[in-house]
């Protein structure tokens, strides 16, 4: 085992970690953006307040993920983002619009406010859809043809549903009163969409990609892998059980275990991500390039690795600290 072998493996792991953290963290705030049009004005303010202190840092994980791809697998960065040129453009437009609308909506003149709210929601939708399309295109190895594009679009819708679920569960945890009641109902609606999305990606990916099918449907690994789908099913079942009960209890002012739906959703994301990572690894562009072919020189990877080992624990520590500071129910934000 030499450095040229395991350095790319470590960096694939780091990149995967960055993407996973991104999907969970920006997933909930994109989801809150998707749900924004459903709330009344006071609810909108509270929803935005619940993600206000976090969204900048959440988006930094995307920069880290894309940045690691650029610096550790430069050959793949060009191929992947070249092939995803248009969805990436749409995602960036979406992220730009929602990022600025977030600030403009409270700072612009009052008559402009509904416009910035709409832009916030539309930007969130555009970014979520585009990220799903990117995932769908990536999984088919950027195959041409109407069917693979249709698949990508469906993944886009599915990922948006998953983000909406994350966002709704975040709101269940971070709010109370009427908004919390509505968030529970939003979560109940988006569970079905998210479940469909997971089912679709899990079912279709082996169909469009025989190499992935071979990795899953062979003995003995099939048995070792079974916990992934079974765990996912169990977590979805848990959602279906707890959400109606939580709705009944919440109506009489008891929201104990309000964090459970969010934790269950994060669990689903973790399992789905693990499944995807298993399907793809060690390829970085499916069917074309593996991580060793795409990797930078070990000399560059070493120096980044030392930095990452030193700095990542600090990042995790102060991110945790920031979440602790804003722990509990979200109150209205003020700069004072």
């Amino acid at each position, binding site marked *: 085992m030499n450095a040229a072998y395991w350095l790319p493996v470590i960096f694939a792991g780091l990149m995967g970690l960055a993407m996973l953290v991104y999907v969970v963290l920006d997933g909930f705030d994109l989801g809150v953006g998707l749900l924004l049009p459903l709330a009344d004005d006071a609810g909108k303010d509270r929803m935005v307040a619940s993600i*206000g*202190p*976090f969204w*900048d*840092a959440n*988006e*930094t994980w*995307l*920069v*880290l993920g*894309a*940045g*690691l*791809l*650029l*610096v*550790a697998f*430069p*050959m793949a*960065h*060009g191929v992947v*983002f*070249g092939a995803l*040129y*248009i969805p*990436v*453009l749409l995602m*960036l*437009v979406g*992220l*730009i*619009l929602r*990022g*600025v609308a*977030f*600030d*403009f909506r409270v*700072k*612009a*003149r009052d008559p402009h406010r509904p416009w910035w709210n709409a832009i916030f929601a539309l930007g969130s939708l555009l970014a979520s859809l585009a990220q799903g399309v990117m995932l769908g295109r990536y999984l088919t190895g950027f195959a041409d043809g109407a069917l693979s594009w249709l698949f990508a679009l469906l993944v886009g819708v599915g990922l948006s549903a998953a983000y909406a679920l994350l966002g709704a569960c975040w709101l269940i945890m971070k709010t109370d009163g009427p908004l919390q009641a509505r968030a529970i109902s939003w979560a109940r609606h988006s569970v079905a969409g998210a479940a469909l999305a997971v089912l679709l990606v899990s079912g279709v990916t082996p169909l469009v990609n025989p190499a992935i099918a071979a990795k899953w449907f062979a003995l003995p690994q099939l048995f070792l892998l079974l916990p992934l789908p079974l765990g996912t099913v169990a977590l979805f079942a848990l959602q279906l059980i707890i959400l109606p009960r939580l709705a009944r209890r919440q109506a009489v002012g008891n929201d104990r275990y309000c964090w459970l739906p969010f934790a269950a959703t994060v669990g689903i994301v973790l399992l789905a991500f693990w499944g995807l990572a298993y399907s793809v690894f060690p390829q970085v562009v499916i069917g074309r390039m593996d991580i060793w072919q795409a990797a*930078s*020189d070990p*000399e*560059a990877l070493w*120096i*980044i690795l030392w*930095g*990452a080992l030193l*700095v*990542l624990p600090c*990042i995790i520590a*102060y*991110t945790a600290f*920031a979440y602790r*500071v*804003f722990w509990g129910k979200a109150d209205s*934000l*003020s*700069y*004072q």
Partner: protein
Amino acid sequence: MELDALTLARAQFGANISFHILFPSINIALAWVLLFFKLRYLRTGKQAWMDAYGFWVKIFALSFALGVVSGVTMSFQFGTNWPGYMQTVGNIAGPLLAYEILTAFFLEAGFLGIMLFGRPRVSERVHTFATLLVAFGNSLSAFWIIALNSWMQTPTGFVMKDGRAHVSDWLQVIFNPSMPYRLTHMLLASGLTVAFLLAGLSAYRQLKGDRSAGNGAALKTGVRLAALLIPLQILVGDAHGLNTMEHQPAKLAAIEGVWHTERGAPLLLFALPNADTQRNDYAVGIPHLASLIIKHDLDGEIRGLNEFAQHPPVAKVFWSFRVMVGVGVLMLLTAWFGAWQLRRDAPAALLDRRLLCWLVGMTFAGWVATLAGWYVTEIGRQPWLVTGVLTTAQAAGQATTSMVAGSLLTYLALYAGLLLAYVSVLFHLAKKAAGQADAAVVLQEVQA
């Protein structure tokens, strides 16, 4: 001019990075100014400083958001627009970019929430510390990115093997010959951008009837900061120019519009550099002054563009430089006159109406000078992407022309809209704050 893929890729990258730099150039220094306001408040206990903090932290939040989203765009475009870049110099650019993300981006974004919204939830000390870390993170990110940019200008500390750059000495890579000059120049540029932004928006508030001490404190801070920094910037700019003469003489020749090597070169105030005839049309200059400034000798020799096989486009560099210096001179006059007018220490810092209007007009002077300066240094590096190692054309990607054209138009439309929204919201916030301050003063008078 034919719009080929290379031109479009350059235009797109240029548009993105120009839009992006507007916001870091505010955030880098504004974070330190906010820390200053906070520390003054802690020391004096005067509410005016906290009022100034409360208003300017909103501007900071808005600028930070724009900086983040335009920065995300950059992280995708390095690979899509310039695939040859990472292939050739990835061993240098990769670690520098990674360190910027890991040490700086997370630090500033991680503590931003506490800085903006955390005051009711954390102690005063933690809040001040969060402000300090955000300021430090912002400056640290400037350090890394300017180290990389300067290395592209004046590369050292590496060897080429099989067409790829390999680091031989990281200290030489990071602290390459132009890096200390460019970093200082940029940090001062950020300070000046913020100084004029502070002065301009505060002047606007005063014009709208705001006589609050908080606004006066911000106005005085802006004008005095500008008066302090502008002479430093002129000194550093001169040193940076000498550094350019030593390491990038072709860029210097383009800046001065010297087509043919000459002794006792004039400082050209106006000219239309003509690439076809290799001379300047309608030149107006001060004899011997360019030689005096650059060589510190009236008859010093300046190497002309004729000595270089490849040199940057002259007119763009020549004029960008004159815009930068021209705005710098205006800044000097404005700042010193303003500081003289403000020499008495009255809390509300009331100024003459004409001076206030002038300051409002100069609000974004820093942006103009900063952009012009970056155009000098970036266009001045052409045709190289990394001097002597890789040309811009070699690094360009294969994206089709129509796709790049479409995305370029999308970005341009988006950026134009956002810039308009940003500027108008800034003035809207100032007007609103002025109205509230005015009401508060009236209330005090009624109660008295």
